[in-house]
């Protein structure tokens, strides 16, 4: 647990600072007639993710593909945001998120035979700044809200072999453990469909009962670089493609 805390600390500390520093809800409130104040949101998403680890080998080798194949296991994430600035046009959110992803495979013997289990697990931590355009729905009742988001990432990861953290020896004989944290960035462009549009009465009722001002489903595409900002000593945990994410967002 102490090791986990040490790995998570670099991302958790600024995230906690960020949420604590967010302005009081009253300052960021913006609402249409009859709606509850909006002060934040919770977003749940799923993505098809595959780290671009093999890219550093430029075709000479492909350790990720060799072990885990070419599939894209699902990445589950949440993002909790507080509204910093709300206007009739849109809302600026600052959020903290986390997720879970794991790829499973089988170890490989010198003769090519497959055997013992091996895995790579990633806990992606996110501090994100996003802007959501509420104007289309609030003004014209067009049920779409485009948004953009940029984020700082800390991918905490473990590589396991045979159910334990993998360990190798480097050229100087020192132990190299298969666990760590890799920093990076991401930029996202997406669009959300406002579900309130289809049953405004039910949506208002839910707002009165639960404080959930708006419910949206979304689809977005993310470009990310998770390689300690280009460090030559880091692998690339970002996807080598525009990664789609889909999910549900509650604005409250």
């Amino acid at each position, binding site marked *: 647990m102490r090791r986990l805390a040490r790995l998570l600390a670099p991302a958790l500390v600024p995230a906690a600072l960020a949420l604590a520093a967010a302005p009081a809800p009253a300052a960021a409130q913006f609402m249409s007639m009859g709606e509850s104040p909006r002060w934040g949101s919770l977003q749940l998403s799923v993505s098809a993710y595959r780290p671009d680890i093999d890219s550093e080998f430029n075709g000479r080798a492909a*350790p990720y593909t060799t072990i885990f194949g070419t599939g894209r296991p699902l990445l589950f994430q949440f993002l909790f945001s507080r509204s910093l600035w709300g206007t009739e046009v849109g809302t600026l959110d600052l959020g903290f998120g986390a997720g879970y992803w794991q790829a499973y495979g089988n170890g490989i013997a010198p003769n090519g035979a497959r055997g*013992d289990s091996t895995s790579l697990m990633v806990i992606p931590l996110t501090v994100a700044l996003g802007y959501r355009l509420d104007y289309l729905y609030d003004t014209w009742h067009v049920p779409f809200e485009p948004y953009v988001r940029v984020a700082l990432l800390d991918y905490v990861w473990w590589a396991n072999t045979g159910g334990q953290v993998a360990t190798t020896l480097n050229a100087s004989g020192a132990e190299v453990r298969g666990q760590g944290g890799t920093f990076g960035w991401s930029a996202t462009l997406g669009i959300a469909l406002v579900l309130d549009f289809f049953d405004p009465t039910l949506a208002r009722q839910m707002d009165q009962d639960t404080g959930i001002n708006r419910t949206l489903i979304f689809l977005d595409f993310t470009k990310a670089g998770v390689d300690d*900002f280009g460090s030559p000593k880091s692998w690339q945990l970002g996807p080598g493609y525009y990664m789609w994410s889909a999910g549900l967002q509650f604005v409250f």
Partner: protein
Amino acid sequence: MARRPALLLLLLPGVALAQATVRPDPTYANRANCSSTTAQTTWNWTSGTSPGTGDVYRLAAYAGSGASACSSTVPAAGSSATVENDLTSPTLTDSATIFVANIQSAAGVNCLDANDKPVALCVYLVPVASTSTATLVAAGTFDFWLAVPPAPTLSSVVPANAALKVTVAAGAATSTETAVGSDVNYTVTCRPNSGTGATATKTGNAGQVITCGDLQNGVQYTVTARGTSAAGNGNVGAASAPYTDATATTPLPFVGFWETYQADGGVDQGGCGTGGRGALAPAAAILALLGLRRRRS
């Protein structure tokens, strides 16, 4: 206030019953002890009635549990149910060490029975005066845990580096093998086919991955498993059919993802962030926040 004496009277028989319990130590015998000529158990009891001078205790065993299985009439000395004829100089709190074989014989227990058998331990106080009536003064239960596990099945065998990872599934109960509870342990044996290398055994529960370690890479092993009940009835439990798939039962020097990445010359060496640039993320976040707060104020 008038109710109190009545309540005390109601409680007294309960106190007497609590005192009249025979506590055997050990409390059970497994199959091996059942048929052993040397296994013993010590009966400990506090009599419900104070023995008089010259009285004796007579100990008997019957099939069943507790006082209700004890005969209401005192068995004759030397009868088949009697395990200790006359224990002289009895005291209120007393004990006797009895051969398990005597209890088994007195209660008519078959040590090869498929099911567990409880036996009632009965302590009678036989007064010296022939005019007085002998009474049951303490009773308890001794268990013959006889059930053995049926042959398990091997769900899977996965080869690993100098090891085999085996998953065992409990077998279905049969008329003669009835121990199928979650407390059954399974011993996996990995025996080299070629006769080289040591045989490895490892114990675990059903559904759990049981690893045969310290094996020789490149050597095929025959893998079997055998159950052992919580009472220790194992050796008579049937063994599983051997798992003989050559690929699955041959340990090899497998390497996982991290080892493959390192062997291919990967640059990442683990750890938290790499170099000074790794610290940019939290630093940038804090700077951004400070900027935001300054703008607000």
